[in-house]
């Protein structure tokens, strides 16, 4: 009885310690990221007034008015402290180019991107895992070679290039899919069906997931090979368990968790890939907004996006850590051993 209590206690201690450490890490990360991005925007040679007016002729009065709006002559520290003070109050400010609250822009755009990312995250995880298992089981056969070749090729393929190829083949020549956008042309929101929506999502999501497959497949293959040559599998073999059954009972169990962990660690690549895919497919996500904000010195919007994406990546890494720490400490031990 006593002993049990003690154990529970240390467990809670551990949990609290973990949470505390994570929170501190997150806060310092966010502060660092904000400072760095702000410094970068300030260093950027882009003149926001020129970016806004293009080649229009402007009188001196107008120029002064525009410079004030874009904060051209404000000292950077004042700009940053203002912004940071408002953030602490939960106010992300108004986007200079969209002229609506930053939080609204992010909500709109991030939702679209999240759907795209979640879909491809799932597809690439499942597909990669299955391919990895097949390759691991049939190590050295032709199918293993095919899968390996596919993975190596994909690992070296630029995202936007693959997106362009898909767009040309499936949308222009074959006409199976729409030319970009996330909704059908000229259809009012109430009349857009789930199928329409799916139809527009397939190509971008597919592009993004095909690229994510490689890493997870190769990792799973490697892990499975390791497991299949372990003592307990040998023992199971001796007991007469064979083939798929054996892999399902002993392999998958031991390979699944590390694979899931790895998938969570891939949030940053997922995010980067999404930005490129969105550009090619004219898909209205956070990527498009981030590019606009950066090129046109929309400081509040850019910093808002940076904050949200840092949180997103941090969240993925934290889940992976939780799995390490609490679900399967063995992973950590193995990592330490290797």
């Amino acid at each position, binding site marked *: 009885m006593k002993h049990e209590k003690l154990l529970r206690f240390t467990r809670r201690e551990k949990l609290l310690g973990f949470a505390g450490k994570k929170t501190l890490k997150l806060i310092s990360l966010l502060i660092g990221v904000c400072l760095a991005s702000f410094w970068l925007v300030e260093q950027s040679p882009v003149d926001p007034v020129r970016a806004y007016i293009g080649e229009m002729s402007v009188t*001196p009065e107008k120029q002064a008015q525009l410079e004030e709006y874009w904060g051209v002559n404000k000292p950077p520290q004042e700009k940053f402290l203002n912004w940071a003070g408002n953030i602490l109050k939960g106010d992300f400010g108004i986007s200079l180019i969209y002229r609506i609250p930053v939080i609204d822009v992010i909500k709109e755009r991030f939702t679209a991107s999240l759907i795209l990312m979640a879909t491809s995250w799932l597809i690439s995880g499942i597909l990669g895992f299955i391919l990895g298992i097949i390759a691991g089981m049939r190590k050295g056969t032709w199918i293993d070679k095919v899968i390996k070749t596919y993975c190596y090729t994909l690992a070296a393929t630029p995202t936007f290039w693959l997106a362009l190829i898909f767009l040309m083949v499936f949308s222009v020549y074959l006409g199976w899919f729409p030319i970009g956008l996330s909704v059908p042309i000229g259809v009012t929101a109430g009349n857009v069906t789930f199928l329409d929506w799916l139809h527009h999502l397939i190509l971008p999501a597919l592009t993004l997931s095909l690229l994510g497959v490689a890493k997870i497949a190769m990792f799973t293959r490697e892990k499975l090979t390791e497991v299949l040559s372990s003592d307990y599998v040998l023992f199971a073999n001796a007991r007469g368990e064979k083939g798929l059954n054996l892999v399902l009972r002993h392999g998958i169990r031991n390979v699944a968790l590390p694979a899931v962990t790895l998938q969570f660690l891939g949030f940053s690549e997922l995010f980067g890939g999404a930005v490129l895919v969105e550009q090619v497919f004219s898909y209205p996500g956070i990527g498009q907004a981030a590019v606009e904000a950066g090129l046109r010195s929309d400081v509040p919007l850019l910093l808002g996006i940076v904050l949200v994406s840092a949180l997103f990546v941090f969240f993925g890494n934290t889940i992976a850590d939780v799995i390490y720490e609490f679900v399967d400490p063995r992973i950590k031990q193995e990592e330490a051993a290797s």
Partner: protein
Amino acid sequence: MIVFAAALPFSSTSRAADELVAAVGTHGGEPEAGFDPINGWADGTEPLIQSTLFKRDNTSLVNDLATNYSVSSGGLTWTVKIRDDVKFTDGVPLTAKDVAFTFNKTANGSSGMDLSMIESIKALDNTTIQFKLNDPQSTFIYKLAGLGIVPEHAYNNETYGQKPVGSGPYKFVQWDKGQQLILERNDEYYGKKPYFKKITILFMEEDAAFAAARSGRVDIAEIPVSLANQTVNGMKIISLDSIDARGISFPMQPDVGKKTEDNYTIGNNVTSDAAIRKALNVGIERQVLIDGALNGQGTEEFTGVDRLPFGNKEATFEDGNTDEAKKILSSGGWKDTDGDGILEKNGLKAEFTLTYPSNDQTRQALAVSVAEQAGKIGIKINVEGKSWDEIDVSAYSTPNVWGYGSIDPTDMYLRYYSVRSGSGEWSKYNNVIFYNNSAVDNNLRKAMTSFNQNTSNKYWGAAAWDGTTGYSQKGDAAWLWIATLKYVYIVDDSLDIGTPGLQPHGADIFNNIYEWKRTHQNS
């Protein structure tokens, strides 16, 4: 991925005859801040959703909401009368108060429209608005034409652009950000009603727009000039004339170590020599540039405003005359003494850099072709693509390829009027060449303050060439104007777009939307 080979069920892409799908870069693409004129929507082009006081008819203005206007003798008080039968689409009448509200908001806002000349705005009664100016500017009429009127009772700075209410020929239905705008005909419209009941405007890059047109999903798409010779079944390619001119600026001052307020070098010892500027103007064969660099999609341009009511026919000249160009150079003291094909004068080589905005292929092609032709008369031009931010630094000392085209002569005024850096009345985006000719200043100022259209146009023309001096080739040859672009569209065979006027810089394709119709059902 053959899994997806099965045809998927999705909403049909066929359209009713009175529904239009357009992928056009009009209004410079998608307005980030939404369809709010106060935040820059459709500055000087047809706003579709809102109405304007006056509207563009080719290169002049006609009444829209306005019924007439008058200007006081000093040019400082403008009184505009408007129709009394106009309603916003929510049923509320549009009155002079809405006009005053729109202009006041814009003057105090931060869109690109410059209303700094306004002193005060008052609605005298329901149909009369009085504008008081702080500077008598005849070009104020173009400001009045450039702004869609918003309803005071339904205006909120943050939400209006997302769901605008107006009194124009079309009603706002839906905006899928980054993708498309859906509009529906306003059946209560006071003016000539358009044929198309519904318009969908897609926001796509030119190449994507062309792909969409090829796949039969679009009625009209703006395409790059490089695709002007393509053929697509069931569609025709049309080129619209514009007033969108391309020209090269010549820094007019010698480089004597002077700097602007921002510490950028002023002046260029080669282009400040009149012989160089005049020889290039006369020696370059514009038609050859157009056939090559513009794929034939353009017309020769000599003053930057040739086709406008305030242009000057007297200022045009014969070009492509290399003998004349060489004569001008040699009598200006330029000789090739070392035999390398490049002229010199007092030890200075006739050589300079020419920049162009690096993301603009048309301007790159023009710059390269100009350099090639200049070589034939002994002038060496080194071409360099730069970002706008780099051009903003180098433009005071280095020629650049620019694009201008507006029916508002203010553009021209700001380009040639001499104000000095540091004088407080200088904007760094204007008169980058530091052009300074008091006779031209005089003509520009007179044009700006003459309220009779003909008188004013006469003075604008005189600024280019008044018989003794001017900014055009016959005078100072301050710029090398090359060509006026054509805007190229691919159009479904069944679509008739009437006779669009000359397109301004950035195009205004929907200006004559009420003339558009479907001539036959496409098979």
